[in-house]
C-alpha cells in the first residue's frame, strides 16, 4: 500500500506531540495506525486522494509551531464591517493576549483544560485525519458559552497559518454551549505560507438543550493549502444548528461536516457554496445522523466550477431505526463552466425507520440559454448577464447567512469572483 508510506514521516509528528491528554492521544494513535491514511480506492476518499496529494507535494512532515502575530496584522486581517469578538490563533495555538476578552465566557487554551472530553464528538475511528489530529495536535482552544447567555455579537475565529516547506498545522477547537445559549461563530483563516502545507483541523461543538448555534466558514486561503477538516456537532432537544460553508480557493480541500441530532425537535441546517477555478479541488462530505424522532434537517450545497477545478459532494442522511417522523431534505446543484471541470456527487440516503419523509435531489448543468438571451435582449452584455445569473444561483446559499456584516463580505467576494472570472 503505497499510500501508507507517509505514515513514516507522520511518525515524527506523533512522537513530538505534547504530553497532555495522554489517554486520548494514545487512543487516537492506535486508531490512526489501525486505519492508516485512506488508500487510493477507499470509498470515503474515492475522489479526493489526500494521501496521494500529500505524497506528491510534501517531502517530510513536521509540526508547525506558533509564530508571532502582530496587532496590526490582526487588525488588517479582520474583514471590513465586522463588529464583534475576535479570537486569534497562530498555527492553531490560541493567542489570548490578542483576543477579545468577553465577560462571562470561558475561553482558554485547550492545554489549560485537560479535563475536556476531546474526541467524544469527533470520534477517532470515523476518520484517520481526525485521529491524526487528536494524536498530535499542538494546542487549541476551549470555548464555553454558559447557560442562557445570548451572545449577540459574533465570534470571529481568526487563524493565521504560516508554514515552512511541508509543515502540518493542526488546529483543534472545543466549543460547548450551555442550555438556552445562542452564539455565532465565523471561521476565517489567513494564509501566510509561500509553499504547500497540510492543514488538518478538528472542531467539536457540543450544544445543550434549546441552543442555537451558527457556524459560518469562509475558505479563501491561498492556493497552497492541502486541507482536511473534521467539524462535528452534537445538538440536543429543541436546538438548532446552522452552518454555512463558502469555499473559494485552496489546492485540495476536504471538509467533513458531521451533525448528530440527539434530541427531539432539533433542527440542523447545512448550506454550502463552492466557487472554484484553477485546479482547485473541493470535497464536501456531510453527514446528518438522525438518532431520535421528530427532528429535521435541511441541506443545500451549490457549486460553480470553472477551469480545471473539481467539486465533490457527498451528502449522507442517516436515519436510525428510532428516528421516526424525521424530515430530511438535501439538495446539490452544480454548474459547470468549462470543458475540464469535473463534478462528482453522491447524495446518499440510509434509512432504517419507516415513518419518515426524506428526499434529495441533485442537478448538474449549465446556465439557461433562454435566461441569458432574455437579459441580453434587454441590453445587458453577455458577461454581465452570466455574472448576474451565476450570482442569483449562488445567492440562494448566501442568504442563509444571518450575520449581516459577514453576509455582505461574502457577497462582495462572490461578486468579485463572478465579475472578474466569469
Amino acid at each position: 500500500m503505497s499510500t501508507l508510506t507517509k505514515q513514516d514521516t507522520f511518525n515524527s509528528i506523533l512522537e513530538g506531540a505534547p504530553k497532555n491528554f495522554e489517554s486520548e492521544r494514545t487512543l487516537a494513535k492506535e486508531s490512526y495506525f489501525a486505519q492508516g491514511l485512506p488508500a487510493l480506492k477507499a470509498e470515503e476518499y474515492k475522489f479526493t486522494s489526500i494521501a496521494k496529494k500529500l505524497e506528491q507535494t510534501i517531502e517530510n512532515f513536521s509540526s508547525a509551531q506558533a509564530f508571532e502575530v502582530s496587532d496590526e496584522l490582526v487588525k488588517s486581517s479582520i474583514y471590513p464591517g465586522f463588529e464583534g469578538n475576535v479570537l486569534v490563533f497562530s498555527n492553531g495555538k490560541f493567542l489570548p493576549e490578542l483576543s477579545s476578552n468577553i465577560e462571562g465566557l470561558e475561553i482558554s487554551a485547550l492545554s489549560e483544560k485537560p479535563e475536556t472530553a476531546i474526541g467524544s464528538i469527533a470520534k477517532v475511528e470515523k476518520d484517520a485525519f481526525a485521529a491524526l489530529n487528536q494524536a498530535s495536535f499542538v494546542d487549541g482552544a476551549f470555548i464555553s458559552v454558559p447557560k442562557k447567555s445570548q451572545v449577540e455579537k459574533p465570534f470571529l475565529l481568526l487563524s493565521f497559518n504560516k508554514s515552512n516547506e511541508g509543515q502540518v498545522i493542526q488546529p483543534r477547537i472545543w466549543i460547548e454551549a450551555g442550555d438556552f445559549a445562542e452564539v455565532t461563530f465565523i471561521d476565517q483563516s489567513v494564509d501566510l505560507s509561500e509553499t504547500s502545507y497540510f492543514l488538518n483541523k478538528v472542531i467539536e461543538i457540543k450544544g445543550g438543550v434549546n441552543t442555537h448555534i451558527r457556524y459560518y466558514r469562509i475558505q479563501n486561503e491561498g492556493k497552497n493549502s492541502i486541507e482536511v477538516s473534521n467539524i462535528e456537532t452534537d445538538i440536543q432537544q429543541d436546538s438548532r444548528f446552522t452552518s454555512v460553508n463558502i469555499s473559494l480557493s485552496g489546492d485540495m480541500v476536504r471538509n467533513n461536516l458531521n451533525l448528530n441530532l440527539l434530541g427531539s425537535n432539533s433542527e440542523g441546517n447545512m448550506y454550502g457554496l463552492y466557487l472554484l477555478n484553477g485546479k482547485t479541488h473541493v470535497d464536501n462530505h456531510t453527514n446528518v445522523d438522525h438518532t431520535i424522532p421528530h427532528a429535521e434537517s435541511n441541506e443545500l450545497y451549490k457549486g460553480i466550477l470553472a477551469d480545471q477545478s473539481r467539486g465533490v459532494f457527498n451528502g449522507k442522511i442517516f436515519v436510525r431505526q428510532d428516528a421516526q417522523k424525521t424530515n430530511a431534505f438535501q439538495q446539490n446543484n452544480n454548474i459547470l463552466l468549462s470543458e475540464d471541470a469535473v463534478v462528482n456527487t453522491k447524495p446518499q440516503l440510509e434509512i432504517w425507520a419507516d415513518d419518515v419523509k426524506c428526499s434529495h435531489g441533485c442537478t448538474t448543468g449549465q446556465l439557461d440559454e433562454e435566461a441569458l438571451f432574455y437579459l441580453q435582449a434587454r441590453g445587458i452584455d453577455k458577461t454581465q448577464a452570466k455574472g448576474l445569473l451565476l450570482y442569483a444561483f449562488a445567492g440562494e446559499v448566501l442568504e442563509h447567512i444571518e450575520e449581516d456584516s459577514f453576509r455582505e463580505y461574502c457577497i462582495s467576494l462572490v461578486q468579485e469572483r463572478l465579475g472578474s472570472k466569469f
Partner: protein
Amino acid sequence: MSKDNQILEELTSKEYEHGWSVNYEADEAPVGLNEDIIRWISAKKEEPQWLLEWRLKAFKTWQSMTEPEWANVHYPKVDFQALKYYSAPKQNSKPKSLDEVDPELLAIYERLGISLNEQKRLQGIAVDAVLDSVSVATTFKGTLSKLGIIFCSFSEAVKEHPELVKKYLGSVVPMTDNYYAALNSAVFSDGSFCYIPKGVRCPMELSTYFRINAANTGQFERTLIVAEEESYVSYLEGCTAPQRDENQLHAAVVEIYAAAHAEVKYSTVQNWFPGDKEGKGGIYNFVTKRGICAGDFSKISWTQVETGSAVTWKYPSCILKGDNSIGEFYSVAVTNNYQQADTGTKMIHIGKNTKSRIVSKGISAGKSQNSYRGQVQVMKRADNARNFSQCDSLLMGDRCGAHTFPYIDIQNPSAKVEHEATTSKIGEDQIFYCNQRGIATEDAVALIVNGYAKEVLNQLPMEFAVEAQKLLALTLEGSVG
C-alpha cells in the same frame, strides 16, 4: 395495531409458490472447483479448444480476485469448493424436437406455468427453458430461423455459430470485469444466445426461463444478445428455484450488443426462492448485466421486477457509446422478511447527445434491506448528454431499511443531469381516502403499491406485466406498517 400484526403475520407466512423440487436422474459434476472441473464441463459440452482456454484464463483471473465487499449486503460467505458446478437432467440423446424431450422435464415447466408445447400456445413467445445447468428446450426455432434470427441455447450456438460467439463473447462483460463475472466465465454451463440480423424486427417476444432444481449446485448461465443494425428484439427472463434450507448461488452474465439503430428491450421478472421467514435459505443472486449501445441511435432498455432471492447484487448497465444512443433502466425491487437487495444501474455516457433515464422503485417490508446503487457517468467527449434519475423508496414496517447510493460523475459542461430520490411510507391520508370510499385497508395498500410501481410495470410486455402484478400482490398483500 393487532390488525396490522395479523396482516403482517399472514403475509410473512405466505409460502413460496414455486418451492417444490422434482427428482430426476441428473448428470452432475463432482463437488468442488478446480481446473479439472472446468475441463470436465468443457468436455461434457464438447466445446472447442479456444473456449476451454478462455474458461481457464477466466478461472486464473478469478483466483487472483477477491470477493467484493462494498455492497450493502451481509451474508455468510459462499464456499466455492462445496458447490457442484454442473448438473444436467439425463437425456439419452439430444432431442431433435419437442416431442422427444423427456415428458418429465416438460412437466416441470408445465407446473411452473411455462408451456413449452408451442402448438397450444396462444401468445407468440419463443422460450428457451434452462433447467439447472442446461437448456432443455427452445421453442419456435423454425419460425424464427426463417427470418434469420438465431435463438438457441448457448451450447448449441458454440457448435453452430462459433464465429459469432467468438466475436461477441466477453466483448461487453470482459472476464476480468468482476469477481462473479470471472467465475461465470470460467464455469458457465448454458444459457441463451440470440442474434437478430440486420433490419429484422423480431415478431415475437423471446424468453428464457431459468429453473434451479438440483441441490448444492450453483447456476451460472450466460446470455448473449446481438442486435444488428436496425433490428429490434424484446427479451424476457424469468426464474424460480425450489425451497431449500441452504443458500444457493446464482451468478449469471448477460451481455447485449446493439449496433446502429438497433433496439433491445430486456425484461426480467426475478423470483428466485427468497428464503423462509426466518431468513433461512434462499438464492444468492449475483448477476452482471450489461449492454453496449455500440452504434449511433441504438437503444437498450432494462426493465426488472425483483421480488425473489435472499441476497441480490445486480446492476444492469448501459454503455452509451454510439452518438444519440439511449439507455433506460426501470426497476421495481421488493424485499420482505430478511431479504437484502443492492441493485441499481450504471449509465456510462460516451457518445454525443446520449440520453439515459433511470426509474427505480424500492419497496421494503419486514426486516429487509433495500438499496439503490447507481452511477451516471458523463465522459469528457459526451456533449449534450442528458440523464434523469428518479429513485423512490417505500417503507412498510419499522424494521426495514431503504438506502440510496447514487454516484453522479460529470466531466462535460454541456451535460444535464438530474437526480431525485424520496423515501416515505404509505401515507395515512392516502389509506384514509381509500377507506372512506369503501376500500379495505389491504386493498388500498395493494392499490397504492401498484400505482407506485406502475411507471415501471407499464414498461413490461403484457404477459410479464400480469405475472409481475400478481407477484407484487403476493409479496406485499396487506403488509401495512
